[in-house]
């Protein structure tokens, strides 16, 4: 990260690199937090719609507003939605399913493929609230990545993804769905079935004390699934290389710092990796406004006029 910071724009080696400064005004702070606030509103809004339908009988067009949960749901009695990863596991497990859930899974898959697979992670998944809280606490406790006791590669989640499918085929039941801490947490919040917060508590401790972004960034097979889907994402963070000073502030706030690979981003004009959750943290903190949400079809690489002498090979040291 320091290496990135020291690279001042070519041609004017003495110009100081501007860094993100926390605004003092309330309006400025809200502006910086705008994506985080929007994400919380969506996350809790989805949860509230499920909860209201279940407990308070909320209706739309005379039908239950949003019946079910994140595994499978129905909007206003007409639009089915389903978790494509759960459905994929059941199909691999060798079971025929009713058409409703297949249609629902296809619709959800198409929607997230357009918006960004991991938009689910950052904007909908209830576990994200837990891991973001852990991340915040970790920051307040000043626990650095170097202090982590547990070290596992971030690609471990893809092993989990493959294992989930293999074990579904071997055991005949949906392997990840059987234990999914996300589904447990979500069911607990909606139905209050009991002990469902255990897994969420474990993940909170893991993320706070043992491994930075341990669950979402290293282990979650569902996140790995959405990362694969996210490669087709049409909504991406566009990167303007011509204005970027490589200050590295975006990398500091990014929960998946590997995705901010300046070389790749400069060449493609956007953050390419499917692991990007479109959370918008980098967009909010960039002092040069080099990062912005855009539709993939409209994104063109905007190279700087004078080539950089040395290009940092990686976005960060996380």
């Amino acid at each position: 990260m320091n290496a990135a910071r020291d690279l001042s724009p070519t041609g004017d080696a003495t110009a100081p690199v501007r860094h993100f400064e926390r605004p003092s005004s309330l309006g400025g702070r809200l502006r910086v937090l705008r994506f985080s606030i929007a994400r919380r509103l969506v996350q809790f809004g989805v949860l509230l719609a499920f909860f209201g339908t279940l407990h308070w009988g909320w209706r739309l067009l005379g039908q239950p507003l949003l019946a079910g949960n994140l595994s499978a749901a129905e909007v206003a009695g007409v639009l089915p939605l389903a978790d494509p990863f759960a459905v994929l596991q059941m199909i691999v497990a060798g079971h025929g399913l009713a058409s409703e859930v297949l249609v629902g899974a296809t619709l959800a898959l198409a929607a997230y493929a357009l918006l960004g697979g991991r938009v689910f992670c950052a904007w909908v998944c209830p576990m994200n609230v837990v891991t973001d809280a852990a991340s915040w606490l970790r920051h307040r406790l000043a626990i650095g990545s170097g202090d982590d006791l547990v070290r596992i590669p971030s690609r471990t989640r893809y092993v989990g993804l493959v294992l989930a499918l293999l074990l579904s085929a071997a055991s005949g039941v949906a392997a990840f769905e059987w234990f999914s801490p996300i589904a447990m947490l979500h069911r607990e919040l909606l139905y209050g079935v009991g002990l469902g917060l255990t897994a969420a508590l474990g993940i909170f401790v893991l993320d706070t004390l043992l491994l930075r972004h341990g669950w979402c960034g290293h282990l979650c097979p569902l996140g790995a699934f959405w990362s694969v889907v996210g490669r087709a994402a049409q909504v991406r963070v566009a990167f303007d290389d011509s204005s970027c000073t490589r200050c590295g502030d975006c990398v500091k706030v990014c929960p998946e710092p590997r995705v901010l690979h300046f070389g790749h981003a400069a060449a493609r004009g956007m953050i390419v990796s499917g692991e990007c959750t479109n959370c918008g943290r980098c967009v909010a903190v960039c002092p040069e406004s080099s990062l912005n949400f855009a539709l993939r079809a409209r994104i063109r690489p905007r190279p700087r006029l004078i080539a950089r002498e040395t290009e940092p090979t990686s976005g960060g040291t996380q």
Partner: protein
Amino acid sequence: MTEGGDRRQFLAHAVQGVAAAVCGGVAWNALLVQQAHAVPFAIRPPGAQPERDFNATCVKCGACVVACPYGILRLAPVATGIPMGTPHFVPREEPCRLCPDIPCAKACPTGSLDRAMADINAARMGLAVIDAENCLSWNGLRCEVCYRVCPVKGKAITVDPHPRKLSKHAVFVPMVHSDACTGCGLCEKACPTEVAAVRVVQPSLVQGKIGEHYRLGWKHEPAPSSAEPPSTGASPAAPTPRPAPAAPGGLDYLNREVER
């Protein structure tokens, strides 16, 4: 040499990674196998597939829970022996009211519950089993509450006379018939004993099977009419000589056919 060392390190890391994945996979699989073969204690909503298929296809969305107008269905919590997150009900607390339009099954998006089921009386959620030792009727009281609340009255539960040891009077005892019992649990809910003497359980836990090789002729084959004794076939027209009536030694009449 460093290149060789790098290759060596890469190989070592690759092998370690594979070993970690295999270890994790084996542990994960062990948990799955243990859970997927859980003893079927749960009483499922109507139209549920056989337990193993149900466990595999239920997406645990709770759509049936939302659809149930009586709010009897619950998603199973952690560590109860019932697969986590799957729907079930506890008849002693809230039994199934057997809605004729079966909204819970119709709400199921995966087909874990048979959405095409038309007749709620075809549901087999469980089977009522009577603990005769603790049943009031079996003990000689005229309780029969289970018989009266049974929605398939007279078919799923009947009240039959049963000889009594102590006196000449018969007792009237409830009997469950598995060919009609839906497992709704209304009887278990209504049973007035401190702990219900009639319980709904999965049939596989209690129901036996006679076996094909036993021929219960007196139950399944038409009884030979006494007016028309079975013909021998070889001489259909031959008149059967009737045994001499009122032969002496009345006790011997059972052996008469054999002697002849």
